[in-house]
Structures are given as C-alpha cells and as structure tokens.
C-alpha cells in the first residue's frame, strides 16, 4: 500500500491543504484506503487541518473519512487539531 507524506514539518497553507484534499479525494476514488504518514509533521494549524480534513468530512462524510483514511506516526499534538476540525465539520453538517 502506498504511503503519502508531506514535504514540510509545519503545515499551515490553506492552498496546499486544498490541493492535497483534492489529490486525496482523487486517490480515494480508486483506492479502498489511503495512508498518510504524519511522522515528520511537527505542527499543523487549525486552518490547514480544517481545509484538508474538516472539508473532506464536509464533502465525503465523517464515516467515509474514518473508514478510508489512516493517519500513521502522528504525534498527539498534530492529530488533535485534525480530530477537532473533523468533529466541528461533522457537527455543522448534522
């Protein structure tokens, strides 16, 4: 299984997040599961987390995302803003 990772240690750009989300959505159209390695990432802004993961939840649904996307090697302080953004978008869609 192919594993994807980001180039930078600090993720903040909504532009990159948006491009990455579209890229991920394309991969998900042909793959059962996509694995993202966040081991190199040391900080992630709430805006990046929202633009990538939160908006993915808005577009695809919460259950779809947690079933088809795996995040590996993520530190708690990196994964938490992602989970918060997903929760926020899940609630706003409810």
């Amino acid at each position, binding site marked *: 299984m192919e594993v994807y990772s980001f180039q930078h240690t600090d993720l903040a750009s909504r*532009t990159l997040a948006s491009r990455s989300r579209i*890229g991920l959505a394309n991969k998900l159209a042909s793959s059962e599961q996509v694995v993202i390695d966040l081991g190199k990432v040391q*900080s992630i*802004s709430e*805006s990046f987390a929202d633009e990538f993961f939160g908006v993915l939840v808005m577009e695809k649904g919460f259950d779809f995302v947690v079933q088809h996307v795996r995040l590996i090697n993520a530190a708690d302080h990196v994964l938490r803003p992602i989970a918060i953004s997903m929760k926020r978008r899940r609630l706003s869609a409810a």
Partner: protein
Amino acid sequence: MANLIEALRFLPRHYGRLARAEAHLLPDDYYSPGFITVLASYLNHKGVRQDSVAYASEENRGYLAAVGLSKALWGVDDYKFERRNAGINYSPLTPLASQDAVDLATEQINDCLRAYAKQGNVDYSNSPAFRDLMRVVGELHDNVWSHGLSTGYSMAQRQAFGKSGDHVIEFSLADCGLGFLGELKSSGMRNIESHEDAIKWCIQEGNSSKKAQAVDDWAQSVPNDFVGENPFGAVPIRAAGNGNHHQGLGLAKLVELARKYQGVLHLASGNCALRMSHHGVMTYQALQAPWKGVAVSLTIKESSFMSAKAAEADDADNVDDIMRLLRG
C-alpha cells in the same frame, strides 16, 4: 528599544518624502523584530534599493546583515560570517513571497522557536502554550496570502528579560497588502467603516472576510494547470470553489494566545494600532500615517510557556475517539 509601533511612526515621518534612490538613514537604536519586519515590508513596498539604505551604527548594520535584511529584500546576502546565532537568539528574516512559500516560512520560523525552547533551564517545547504558538505562526503566515495578497516578512527573536533570568520570545510579521478594512470592503462588507472597527471584527472568533464573501474567487489565483507540491501528485484545479473554507480562527487564536499566556500584542492596520498588555487590557491608538497592510508583534515570556498547563476540553473523550479511529 524600537518596536513595531515606533516603526509605524518613524518610517512614514522620516522616509515618506524621500525618493527611492535617496539615502534612507537608520538611526542608532536597538531594533526589535516588530521594527525589522515593518522596515522590510516598507522598503520592499516602496522599492528602495539596497544601496539607498544607510546606517548610523555599524552594530545595526551588522545585526541587520546577520538577520538577512538584504538577503530577504534584494536576494543579496551581505553578511560575511557564519550565522552562529541564527536559531539561538534570532531567526532569519523570512520573506513570504507567494502562497507556496507559506509552509517553508512557517518551518523556518518554527524551527528557530523550537531551538529557543530547548536552550533555557527547562525545555518547554512540549508545553501546550508553545504548541499553540507554533500553530498561530502558521495561521498568521497563511493569512498573508489568503487575505493580504502581498509579500510579507516575519521574524522571531529570543532575548533576556531584565535581570530576572527569564527570556522573552517575540514573533513579528508585517505586510503591505490589503489590510483588514481594505479586505473587508473588497469582500463586500459595507457596515464596517473604520480601521479600528475592522480590527475589532477580524479578531472575533468565527469572523472571516472569506466567509462573508458571497462569491469565492480565491481559487482563481491558482493557475488552472497547477500541479502543486501536494503529496498526492497532480491535481486539476477548478477555476473556483476548490477551497477557501475559512473559519475565522487565525487572529482569534492570536489574541487568545496572548491573553492566556500574558503576552504583549501589537496589531496594526490602516490608521489604527491595537495594543494588548500582559494583563489583557486592549487599547486602540491612532496612527498619523496609515499602514498599508497588517503588522503584528507578539511577545511572550518563556516562564509563561513553562508554567502553562493543558486545558481539559469538555469534549476530550469525543476528540480522543476520533483520534483512535484515524490511527486505525
């Protein structure tokens, strides 16, 4: 010490009438990151040449060469030595020249901040307050190109705080972009007329000019054939509607960070500058010469990072469950 507010007053008063090729003399002083980022942004916006900047003090010349003023502004590195103190007590002056520079700039500044965090008596790099600072740096960097649409400059510095043994970290960022009021007006908001009201509106959580826009035209700034550096490879970008789901979190997080950890915050745009004291008291002061764009400076004592405790969120279990699901 010449700080951000002094730069906003000094530069238009003393340089405003000078032609670009005339000598722009920098007086002898101690320049904080707030002053330096505003200076860089001003010189870049005005198009001042490298040989038109003069220094009353060789120490100032040396320090500004060390932080990389010429390198950041004109692409010419005039510092002849190894930068031994880069990442020890200052970060290089970091330009944000495009949307694609945001993450690299954030990495450069945060790398220096992480190095500062490991230098003191206590390593506070795992402090929740420090984690918040990392995220706020990223939010502010992204704002430059999501909102300001003009080159910005950022910098961070660590320095001793009196004789207490404590140190302070100052992070600063300035651009000559649209500014808060300009961006709100270009977004079609008509009920905000003054720069002070624009600052007050923009620092409220949930307020974003992008959310206020009826039509999202931001995506058009990306060429249609852009393949980008995203990890999933080439991505066809639609002309509009591919992103920009702004939640209005960045500036609210900046203010919250300053308030929670007794920071001193300066935030200026147009003819208004907000100052928040370490007691959390906000005052607005008028600027005689309006600043075209946004200028931010945040100073926090290292002892505040060290003593910070993680807040226990009401919905921690819920978020923990999502984290478990994502890890699989």
